[in-house]
């Protein structure tokens, strides 16, 4: 057997090899097996959790959640068309009568077919619409003096918030 430096070098090489071989065996057959068994346990637990709530209960829960979510959504977009009545009651001159009214909620458009006692009265009525904070814009579609009264047709566009609860 050689002595001195070659011997120590050989011992060092053998030691390094043994350490690397032990490290490999530990990783491949110890830690890896441990991790595999932990993963298998986790998957089994996940399956068990999945079975804790029955399919019927899951369906019922989905329906309940859907009902709440859909109701919330529908209520947030709910409209109050009757606000048009309130608006007309507050903003109609004494000498003006309405023959017809047409409200389109999606367009926020109220078309009024009415009669005013005179053109002066019609102008006052249009000014009243203009002043109303609920109205975004107005458009006098037509006006005609008929038998001592003035028939008119006017379009009012409401502000978006007016028809909301």
């Amino acid at each position, binding site marked *: 057997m*050689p002595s001195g430096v070659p011997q120590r070098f050989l011992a060092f090489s053998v030691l390094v090899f043994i350490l690397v071989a032990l490290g490999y065996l530990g990783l491949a057959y110890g830690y890896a097996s441990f991790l595999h068994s932990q993963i298998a346990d986790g998957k089994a637990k996940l399956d068990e959790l*999945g079975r804790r709530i029955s399919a019927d209960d899951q369906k019922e829960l989905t329906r309940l*959640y*859907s009902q709440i*979510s*859909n109701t919330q959504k529908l209520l947030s977009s709910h409209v109050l068309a*009757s606000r048009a009545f309130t608006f007309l009651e507050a903003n109609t001159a004494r000498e003006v009568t309405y023959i017809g009214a047409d409200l389109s909620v999606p367009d926020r458009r109220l078309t009024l077919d009415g009669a005013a006692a005179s053109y002066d009265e019609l102008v006052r009525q249009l000014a009243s619409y203009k002043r109303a904070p609920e109205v975004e814009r107005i458009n006098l579609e037509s006006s005609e003096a008929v038998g001592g009264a003035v028939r008119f047709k006017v379009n009012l566009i409401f502000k978006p918030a007016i028809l909301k609860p």
Partner: protein
Amino acid sequence: MRPATKRLFSILASSGLLIGTIIFFSSAVMPEYKNIQQLRGEKKSLDAVVGEEDRLINTASQLLNEYQNAANLRDNLSLVLPREEALPGMINQIQGIARSTGVTIEGINVENLPLTHSEKSSIVEPVGSFKATVRIRGSYEASRSYVQSLETNVRIIDVDSMAISGGGGAGPLTTNLVLRTYYQR
């Protein structure tokens, strides 16, 4: 064998063993280490999923228990947004409101509209709706009261459009209403 030759062989063997060890380390130990890192990552994410699932299942179980105990909630929600079309119920409500507000119903037409989905990936079930065209006859106060009652009805009813005619005289008003009401599929 001469001592010098023995030393040479010893050095060569040691070097060979060391080189072999390095080759073994890079070709077997390193890939195994990468595999271990991958498994650790998998375990960590699985633990997170199990934890989250456990939390969700507990919340869901608690909700189900509360929901099963609160029969009123289920009934009330089904009045606001029925779980079926419930068309006869809707016509009954439209008619009942007319009776209580003093207007006369001259006609009702109902049209089933396509389903609307919240979002493509959402678990929320779709909403179906009916468009009902209702023609009523009554005084101004009664017509106004009818529209207000529809708006505050338990089952959600939206007024899409409203056309009033017959004003300017002493006779009753005729109002054409286009209503929209909903149900959950």
